[in-house]
C-alpha cells in the first residue's frame, strides 16, 4: 500500500515549549488511523504541520506525496479535507447554505443530497447553525470536510462526548468513507473511541509517539491485558493467586478483589476460588483497553503492567 501521510522526525516548538519531538510514522492509503493521547500531547500541532498551517522546526511531512508547505493551496486542498478543532460557522448560516458554499470551493464534489442523508442531516437542511445540537454540528463539519470526496481527511476531535449509539453510527459512516477510498486521520483524546474506530493508532504523550500499532496488538502487549473483578462474602487469601504465573497483580479493597493478568486469567481465578471453597459475587472479566495501555506506557498507572514488556520505552520526557 502506498503511503498517504508520513512524518519523518517531526519537531515543532513554541518558544521554549516542545510541542512535538521526533515524531515518525507512516499512514497507509485507505487506513482509519488514530492519533491519540491526552490534551496537550501534540496531536493537533502534528496535524497542523501536516496541513501546512505550521512550519515544522525540523523533520519532514508528506501528504499524498505532497509537501504541504510547497504545494499550492488549491492543489493541496482539492485532495485533502480537514475538520479542525475550534473551526466554526456563522450562527445564522443554514445547513444547506453551508454545504452549497463549501461545495463551490471545489471543481467536483460528491452528490450533496445523499451525503446529507447519510450523515442524518437531511431534515435539518433549513436549520441555522445555532439551532443544531452539538452532535449535528459535528456531523455537518465532517460533511463539509468530505464534500469534495478527498483522498485524505483529517478529523480533529469530531466526536467530543459521543454517546455509544452515536459512536456506533460514526464508526459505520467512517467505514463507508474508508471504503470509498479515503484515508481517515482521526485525532482524539478519547481512547475508547479510537479503539472502536481505528485500524491503527499512534499514541502520543508530551510531544512524542509512545506506541504505534493496531489497538488489539497494543493491548496484547500489556502483561496484564485482562482483569477479573469479584466480591467475596468471606475472606480470600490472595497469596496463592499472587504467585500464579498467569497473574500479574492482585488488589484487595475490603471484599472487592481485582486480579490483573494475561490470557487465561478467568479460569485461573475460578480454579483458585474453587480450591478455597469461595463463591464469588459479581464475577466478571474484562479485556484491558487503550486507556490501560496509555497508563502503562506513561508510568501513570498502577504497577499492574510493566512498560518494559512493550517494545517502545515509556515516555522519557
Amino acid at each position: 500500500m502506498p503511503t498517504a501521510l508520513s512524518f519523518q522526525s517531526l519537531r515543532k516548538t513554541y518558544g521554549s515549549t516542545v510541542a512535538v519531538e521526533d515524531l515518525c510514522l507512516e499512514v497507509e492509503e485507505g487506513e482509519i488511523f488514530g492519533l491519540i493521547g491526552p490534551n496537550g500531547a501534540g496531536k493537533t500541532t502534528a496535524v497542523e504541520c501536516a496541513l501546512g498551517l505550521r512550519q515544522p522546526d525540523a523533520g519532514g511531512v508528506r501528504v499524498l506525496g505532497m509537501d504541504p508547505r510547497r504545494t499550492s493551496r488549491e492543489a493541496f486542498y482539492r485532495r485533502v479535507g480537514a475538520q479542525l478543532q475550534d473551526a466554526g460557522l456563522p450562527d445564522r448560516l443554514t445547513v444547506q447554505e453551508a454545504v452549497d458554499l463549501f461545495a463551490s470551493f471545489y471543481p467536483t464534489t460528491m452528490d450533496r443530497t445523499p451525503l446529507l442523508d447519510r450523515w442524518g442531516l437531511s431534515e435539518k437542511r433549513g436549520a441555522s447553525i445555532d439551532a443544531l445540537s452539538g452532535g449535528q454540528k459535528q456531523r455537518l463539519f465532517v460533511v463539509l470536510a468530505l464534500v469534495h470526496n478527498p483522498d485524505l481527511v483529517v478529523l480533529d476531535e469530531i466526536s467530543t462526548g459521543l454517546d455509544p449509539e452515536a459512536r456506533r453510527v460514526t464508526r459505520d459512516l467512517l467505514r463507508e468513507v474508508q471504503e470509498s477510498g479515503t484515508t481517515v486521520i482521526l485525532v482524539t483524546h478519547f481512547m475508547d473511541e479510537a479503539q472502536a474506530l481505528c485500524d491503527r493508532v499512534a499514541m502520543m504523550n508530551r510531544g512524542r509517539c509512545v506506541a504505534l500499532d493496531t489497538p488489539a496488538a497494543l493491548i496484547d502487549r500489556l502483561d496484564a491485558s485482562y482483569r477479573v473483578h469479584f466480591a467475596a462474602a468471606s475472606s480470600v487469601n490472595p497469596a496463592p493467586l499472587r504467585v500464579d504465573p498467569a497473574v500479574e497483580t492482585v488488589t484487595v479493597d475490603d471484599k472487592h478483589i481485582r486480579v490483573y493478568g494475561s490470557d487465561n486469567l478467568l479460569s485461573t481465578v475460578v480454579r483458585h476460588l474453587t480450591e478455597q471453597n469461595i463463591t464469588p459475587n459479581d464475577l466478571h472479566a474484562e479485556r484491558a483497553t487503550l486507556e490501560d495501555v496509555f497508563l502503562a506506557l506513561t508510568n501513570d498507572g498502577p504497577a499492574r503492567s510493566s512498560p518494559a514488556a512493550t517494545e517502545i520505552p515509556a515516555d522519557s520526557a
Partner: protein
Amino acid sequence: MKAFLTLTWTESKLFLREPAATFFTLGFPLLLLVAFGAIFGNDPASAPGEVGYTTYALPGYIALTIGSLGLLSLPITLATQRDHGILRRFRVTPLRPVTVLGAQATVHLGMLTGSTLLLGAAAGVGYDVPLPASPLLALTALVFGGVTFLAVGFLLGALVPTARAAQAVGMTLFFPMLFLSGAAIPQFLFPDWLRTASVVLPLTHTTRLLQDAWLHGQWNGTAALVLAGVGIGSTIAATWAFQWT
C-alpha cells in the same frame, strides 16, 4: 469565480440577517433623513448655497452609511469570523484569502449602493431632493469614500483581538465621527473652531468630498488627498497585521 460568487451571495444574506448591521447601514441613515427632514424640511435656501436643508444633508447621510460600514460592520464581521473559527475553516479549503476579503468588500460596497439608492429615492420622493449635479462625479466620490473606509475596516478587523473589542472600538470611533464630521448634522451649523477641529476625523473628508460632488459638481482635492492617504496607509497596515486565527 464560482467560489467568489457563492461566498458573496452567502455573505450578503448573512449581512441582512444581522439586525444591528442592517439597521446601521440601511435603517439609521433613512431614519435621520426622515427625522431631520420633518424638523428642518427642504425649503429653498434653508442651507448655504441656496439649497434646501435635506438636499444639503443627503450626502452626509451617505457618508454616515460609509462610516458605519467601515467602522462597525466590516471590522465586526471580520473579528467574528476569526473568533468563531470561520476563517480557520476557510484556511483548510482551496479558498484564497483574497477571495474571502474580496467577497466582504463586494458585499459592503453592495450594501452602500443599496443604501444610497434607498436614501436617494426617499429624498427624491419625500423632499423633492434633485439628482446630483454631476452623477458621474457623485458616483466617483461614493466609490472613493467607500473604498477608503473599507480599507479602514480591514485595518480595524486586523487589529482588534475579538468581536467584542471590534464592537467597542467601532462604536468609539463611529459615534464622534457621526456627530462631528458633518454626516448627521451639517457643519454649517457648527462654530468655526469645531469645523476646523473636525478635519482630524476621516469621515469629515468623506462628507465634504460627497457634498462637493453632489451639490456643486466639484471635486474636493484636499478631501480626496486625505482619504487617499488614509486608504493607502490602512491597506498597507492591514496587509501587514491581518491574522487568520
